[in-house]
């Protein structure tokens, strides 16, 4: 929680994202092409959601960010319902669902990349040593 309200942390995060985008240009081109196609055929919503998913997949950013996004949209649902915004609550639940699907797929990709633990339930045990950037996945050299 402390990190989220820390300005420096946000700045470093943005710098890392910027660095990823500027250094891995091929991935960026692929991402843009795919997203443009999806946007064209399936609309803006689908385009943006796929852009989010593919950028996390291609740049191997931390999937927990999308997980938190999913939780945030889920949390909004009961409040929207209490304000009689039923349609919006339904839409937020759908977004939560999309974000959770993304989270799980990214988690599987991460498990395939990094390996994981079978049922200990203790994630610290399996965390690889030397990861200094908690909000970012393993980096390519």
């Amino acid at each position, binding site marked *: 929680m402390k990190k989220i309200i820390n300005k420096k942390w946000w700045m470093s995060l943005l710098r890392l994202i910027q660095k990823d985008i500027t250094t891995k240009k091929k991935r960026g081109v692929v991402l843009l092409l795919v997203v443009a196609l999806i946007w064209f055929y399936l609309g803006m919503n689908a385009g943006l959601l796929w852009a989010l998913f593919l950028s996390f997949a291609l740049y191997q950013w931390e*999937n927990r960010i999308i997980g938190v996004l999913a939780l945030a949209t889920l949390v909004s649902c009961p409040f929207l319902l209490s304000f009689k915004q039923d349609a919006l609550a339904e839409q937020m639940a759908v977004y939560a669902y999309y974000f959770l699907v993304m989270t799980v797929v990214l988690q599987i990709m991460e498990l395939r990349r990094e390996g*994981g633990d079978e*049922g*200990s*339930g203790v994630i610290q045990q*399996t*965390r690889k040593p030397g990861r200094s950037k908690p909000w970012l996945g393993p980096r390519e050299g």
Partner: protein
Amino acid sequence: MKEFFYKYKYLLLAFSISIIANFRWLSLSIFTSSDHGFYFLDTLKEFSLFNAWSALGMGSVNVLIWRIIAGPDSLMYGLFGNLGLDSNVSDKFLVIWPWIVLSGVVSYFFVRNITKSEIGGIVGACVFSFNTYFLSSNRAGHLLLSVAFIFATLSFFLFMKFLKERKISLACLTSLSLFITASYDFRSLYIVFGILFFYSIYHLIVVNEILEYKKIIKDTLVMSSPIILFCALSIFWVLVSLNTGTLAENSILNRSLFGNSFWNIQNTFTLFHPFWSGSAISWFVVHDIPFYFWLIPIFAYLGLILNRKNREVVFFGIISLIGIFLAKQVGEPFHSTYPWLYEHFPGFNAFREASKFYFLVIISYSVLIASFVNWLWENWTSGRIKVFSKYLITGVILFIFLWNTKPIITGEIDSMFIPRHIPQGYLILKDFILKQPEYFRTLWVPRDSRWSIYTGQKPKISSIAVTDSEWKKLVENNNEDIKLVQNRITNVFRLPFADKLFDVSSIKYVVVPLQDIENSDDFFADYGGDKNPNIRQWYIDQLDNISWLKKIDIGTKDLVVYENKGYKEPILAFTELYNFNSLDNLDSKYSFINKNLGSDFYFTGIDKNANKSPLVKITNPFENLAMSGIISDGNYLVAITSSTEGRSNDMLYIHKKSLSFFGADTGKEIQINANNGGILKLKSQSINSADTQNIFSISKVPHTQYYLQQGSELTAFIKGNTIDIADSTMDSKVAILADSANLIRNPSFEDGTWQDKVGDCNNFDANPVLGMSLSSDVASEGKQALQLEATRHNACTTTKIAIPDFGKYILTFDYQSSNAKQASFYLAFNDKEKTVVPDTAKITDAEWSTYRRFINVPYGATSATLYVYAEAVDNKTNIINRYDNFSFSKLRAVREVNIPKQTIGEYSKNSLPKSNDTSLIFTYEDKNFDYENTIDNGSFEEGTWQEKVGDCNNHDKNPILRMSLNTEEKSDGAQALQLGATRHNACLSKGLKVNSGGHYLFSFDYQSPNADHAGYYLGFNDKDKTIISERLTLKDKSWHTFIKNIKVPEGATVVSLFVYADATDGKTNILNRYDNFKIIEVPDLSDAYYLVSDPGIKLEKPKSITFDLINPTKKLVHIKGATTPFYVAMSESYHPQWQLQFDNAKIHGVFNSWTPFVKPERVGDEYHYKLNDFLNAWYVDTEAYCVNNSLCVKNADGSYDIEMVIEFFPQRWFYLGLLISGTTLLGCIGYLGYDGIKRLRRKGDKKYEKNN
């Protein structure tokens, strides 16, 4: 002991919570509700002989043959029955107590195994056991499903262990657990198979990270071993289901998708059952999700995020998302996926509503939430706030789920949780039924009670069930008002052949059950009781009027019992079997056979062997008249029937009642005439002739209008036109009446309007927009007509009428409008009671119509005031009503004419001209019919019938409806109508004039690219507002033609035709296309002609026929003294695999008596008939079997004795399957025993080594 309690404290806690929550179920009382019934031990006993054929009801293939452990018709319940225990005891041991004990224990071990945490285990157990889905499901009596899901969880748990440890014993245990799962509820097996499939793939790719195909194949084979064992265990029912075809199609799989509006993503996310109220549950009433339920998905997905490195937790994340996606049914996102899977994915059609997929959410949330709690307990170990928060969050989670048990503990949830008591009347009836040794059925009206006794020897039938299944076709065509369920149930008793139907169905008693309010079992509410609180008495009153049922006293007043004295044994012999070309008009056919052929009413419908001996073929040539049979150019009908090979004694029976009466105005005379209909010709050769006789005639007095009165109906004589006299008027009188002087001054407005200013007859504010004028261009009489206009308020005008005397008068006027829906008037008399006569006339087109009505002028009235109106509708449209040619005059009787009684049901017998042709071409000419299509623009070539699409389900203000003409998809002409509905139902209507009592052929073509049905509605304006409407199922995208014979109700003159496109999910644009509408008046020939084609073989019943009912699939038949061929009937539902075999060595012996590989000597399938469209009958040809093949024993008098067996052949596949399944089961148990002993020995050895 202390050590034990400490070691298993969490397990014991889970167990204790379950016991406390379900403490009401610990007694041996009867707990029963909706789908969870009660069974007497006499019923249960027979379940131990489980078979491929179920003798319940009218008999059917046992589609639940896999249910051997639990359920009303299972082997294990049968064993309890044989121990002398009713189902309240077997229920406890096999269903209720397993739920109490295993729900907590299995889920505890399952979750603990994944999270490796005791606290995780207890939290998971609470999530699993006390969620609203299982509690709602249990409340509704779906306990079998709940217990099945426990075993599904256990199966998954064992499978996970098997994949890790790869032990044969675990494979055996997994397969046995899967087998038990299936035996409780097959749908849970389907879901757990899905989980195992996904887990296997996940295990291969993500957990083991195997990418080599050889290793994948090897691992797949290993993984499949429990499934292979399960298949071997299940082969006993698989063989039967494959053999009877019920695996792919049965009553459970054929149901349509249901409950789309109940499920959505919010409910599935929060694991909240939409019907859960936190108190007594009202089924199908959707409740808001309580705020705190949103914590459930948040905790669950926090568990997923925090344990993202745990492969198994991630797997349950996947399962939860699959579960949410499926359990929301047609909710967003991807709303059309579930319907697609339902239609196309094998086995998915067992889930007609998505609630079963809640299990996926439950099992995954159990793990995910437990993982979250486990994370808290492992990570928040220091710091006061963290430790406190850890306890608080765990407490909140437990509270959310445990709070759900409150209505169960307090008992406010009612239903399954309240002990029930059997009403005394049912116990008396049970003894009364069971003490009778013979076989018979009882029919329960409107349906059977949970306390109704039945056995294989005394099956019970639910009236509504049999009416909607076996008897459906027999009743449907005779039903006057099938919209009301109570009519559908009781109409069957009023069929002319109802007693024959009950006799051949072996129904001895008809019982009206109690309105069992004390036991919350008042099902009468569903069968008419919602509108009639005395509905039970209504049913009793209906049955009291049935002459062939005798009310009897069995010693209780609780139940009303009727006896059908004429009921027949379940196996009998008979001699005449009639074959009909259609099952329509069975009343007429019964009457024809009964009065003219004089034999019992045994028949078959459309049969591939209809033209073969020995059936007596009865054909009504014009019964199924197609549109192609109407030759409107030549004004005649054509019907082609196939001649029967080798028969020269075909007879045509012509109904003698075919005289029809009509009134006519020739200009000079008023006449009542009779004619005998049209001319029937066979290949241009007349068989009968048309003839008109004059019954009565009278000269007309000039300037007098004459009327024909039939009952309360009044019809004006119009020069050149005829008035049909209804059949119902036969043997009674019609009256000819004439009017006198018109009492209305200025009736045709030739002298101006009645008043100077238009009146405001709805002056609710000061802003009327009204008008009145004389219309000179549109008038029905003279030069001008009255025109009233109303945009706001109602325009009206009035005139006074002087009344000379009280008595019978007639009011007539002409009315017209191009935009009003109705014309209305109000007539007020000045008598003491201030009598008023208001009425409206519907306007269906822009043509002038004439209104006529008898008015009884009250005594004391000396004047009347007549008002006519134009009524505003939307404050925008200028509604214009025109009126003309008013007349109010006293009627005088001219003459009463007696219409002679017709001989109904008598036919003249006519030989047909000799011919070698194989088809008989009949033509029917009747000059009274022109066969013109009543519908203008029936093919939409001149556009749609209305400018705007109608909204026929305007439940809110947001319809999304479309109407257009499609020039690409059409069946006739250049274009077809296309209706589109996304929200609400699109409809298009047209009003049509019809003749009262007339017969019409109605047809249209329909097609859709995405709808599952098309629909039409015909609403008549008769007194009863008769409706004919249907939903026509669509299974493909091609054009279909609908055709139906319609009889216009007496008194109806206008019919409103509607066609529809019905929205489904609020998102898809459902398109329905219609084209080529026709409504053509045709003569009523439904019972006019019968062509009887008799094979000419004289049949006689054998001297005696007796039988032994061995089991539901096998009956021995002993026939004595057969001298000619005969038919054998068996009172079980028809199934092609019932066989009538000769009881000889071919079906005897160690193997031949049970293996399916024998070829018994039997009556061929070509002589196996669907008797009365629902039972079995065989033709036993003594010549072929006894004389030529010596399969019978010849007596000294030349007659034959025959020993036969009626067998349901798939039972033999069941025996074979049972052998394989039984061997596999013994093998599994044997191996587990061997492995267990080995382990014990090893453990003992280790202990020994340790001690030494």
